[in-house]
């Protein structure tokens, strides 16, 4: 046996075991409930929807005449803001709070009505008790008075990066810019750092352009003065 392989195998095995234990813990906590999306496809909550992905989750219901339509419209702008990332490493899920009422077809109609029937964005329904577990695990305030009012959970967005086990909640009606900023916190540090470097380089270039422009203007004014 290769000596290097022999020496490293216990280490890699231990790391793999720790990884799978962490994964099992996440699967147990976030649940692996079987949900049905607006296309009628069955999906497992953790294994198919969250695992190895950056996810944006909100709760809604088709007949909600409160905040849900506005949230969906705001999230659509977020979708557009994330351009090529949705469906690649980032996914959006809208889970119904009223699964007894919302069939996959009702959710599909809701998505179509809001022009949100888009790739990488799924509307989900399922067993009411399992959806309640998901709702509490993702959105609860640890205050039964608030948690028992389902409408209290329609105004928030849950952000999650499975690979980093990083999550946060943010108001769904924040500005698109603010939401995109918060979603960017889900990215790994090197990606954030690269983005920061790129943004800084863009800023420096912008300042240099502005300085050159100001210099040019000054020169032009001087030239005009000499011409007089």
């Amino acid at each position, binding site marked *: 046996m290769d000596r290097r392989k022999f020496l490293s195998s216990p280490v890699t095995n231990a790391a793999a075991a720790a990884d799978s234990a962490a994964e099992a813990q996440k699967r147990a906590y976030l649940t692996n409930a079987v949900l049905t999306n607006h296309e009628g496809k069955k999906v497992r909550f953790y294994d198919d929807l969250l695992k190895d992905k950056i996810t944006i989750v909100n709760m809604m219901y088709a007949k909600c005449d409160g905040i849900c339509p506005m949230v969906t419209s705001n999230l659509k702008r977020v979708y557009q803001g994330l351009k090529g990332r949705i469906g690649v490493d980032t996914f959006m899920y809208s889970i119904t709070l009223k699964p007894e009422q919302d069939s996959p077809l009702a959710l599909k109609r809701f998505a179509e009505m809001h022009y949100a029937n888009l790739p990488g964005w799924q509307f989900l329904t399922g067993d009411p008790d*399992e959806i309640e577990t998901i709702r*509490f695990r993702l959105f609860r305030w*640890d205050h039964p008075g608030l948690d028992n009012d389902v409408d209290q959970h329609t105004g928030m967005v849950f952000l999650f990066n499975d690979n980093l086990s990083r999550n946060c909640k943010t108001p769904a009606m924040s500005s698109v810019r603010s939401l995109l900023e918060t979603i960017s916190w889900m990215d790994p540090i090197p990606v954030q750092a690269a983005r920061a470097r790129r943004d800084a380089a863009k800023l420096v270039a912008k300042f240099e352009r502005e300085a050159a422009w100001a210099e040019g203007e000054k020169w032009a004014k001087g030239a005009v003065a000499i011409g007089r």
Partner: protein
Amino acid sequence: MKRVGFLYALMFVCLSAGGVTYGQSEARKACPFNVVGTWRSEAATENPILFRFAPDGTVTLLSASTAIPNSDFETLAAVSYKLDKPSAPTRLDIIAARGNEVFGRGTTAMEIVEYGDDSFTTIHPVDGRRTHWVRAKTNRYFLTFAARRTQLTGYSDDSSQKIDPKVGRPNGAAYGGPAFAMWTKLDGRKTEVETLGLYLRTEGVGRMVPVVGAIPSGLYKEFLKESDKDSDVMMRLELSEAEFERTHKVFKIWEKRAQDKTLLYDEPYLNAMEFLRRTAESLNQCGERVKLHKLDWLQNDEIVSRHHIPAHPLEYIRDMRKKNDKLHVTDARFPADWRPGQF
């Protein structure tokens, strides 16, 4: 004058018809129908035939009998049944593939004209005979809420000490303890008991850990009879079969939650309170059966604002008992030796 009289008559007819329709729809809306259980028809003879509707779509015809050991009933026949809309039916089909003494071969379709928790009325399609069905008391059902006041360690009353904000405010008594619901079913031969709630498990050196799950038999058996301890509070209600089924649904959901570790909160006392509240409120699904404290968890809430979280279930049950003392089934009224037979 005639025209005025006619208009009044028309108005009277419209209002009465509207009233009837409104009443019917309200009655129907109140609670979903549940045919599962044992029924007898009003046209019963001295030895009545009972119809036991099972959830799997079979109906067994039974006759009261003392001839069979360990059973109060003799099975006469089994056929199938079908309701057009199980929770709001208008038609009951009895399907006898081969036919028997009671039902001829084929399907007998009966129109359901009214229903409630404990009765329904059908009209026979051929002779228009009206039959009133009532639930037969082959079992008796009880739901008990119980809690015990225990001094807790780790929950301080001292306002100078730091308290975990999840646990509660610094003022008030640091007590809590077991709190649970117990479903009791008597069939005259055996007593079935199912429990769920919070109990304290001793871990390590006398450390009491609150756990949500099935209650250890030693503890729930102490509440099969009324306790004379000041620390104990108990509320025992007799339920109809339909009420039992409705509350038992809550039990099934939360039993699964406890087993699958999908309880709604990390704090066991919050889970216990939520489970007990939902169980109690399921009694009022079809109108106010018991008077309950409306927990809103805000500053004005009498229970929440005066007590730590561990004491909430106990105080909730105490309040329920206080408001519904007349409904409490005392030991003297508890039918321990009850036998079915009086249908």
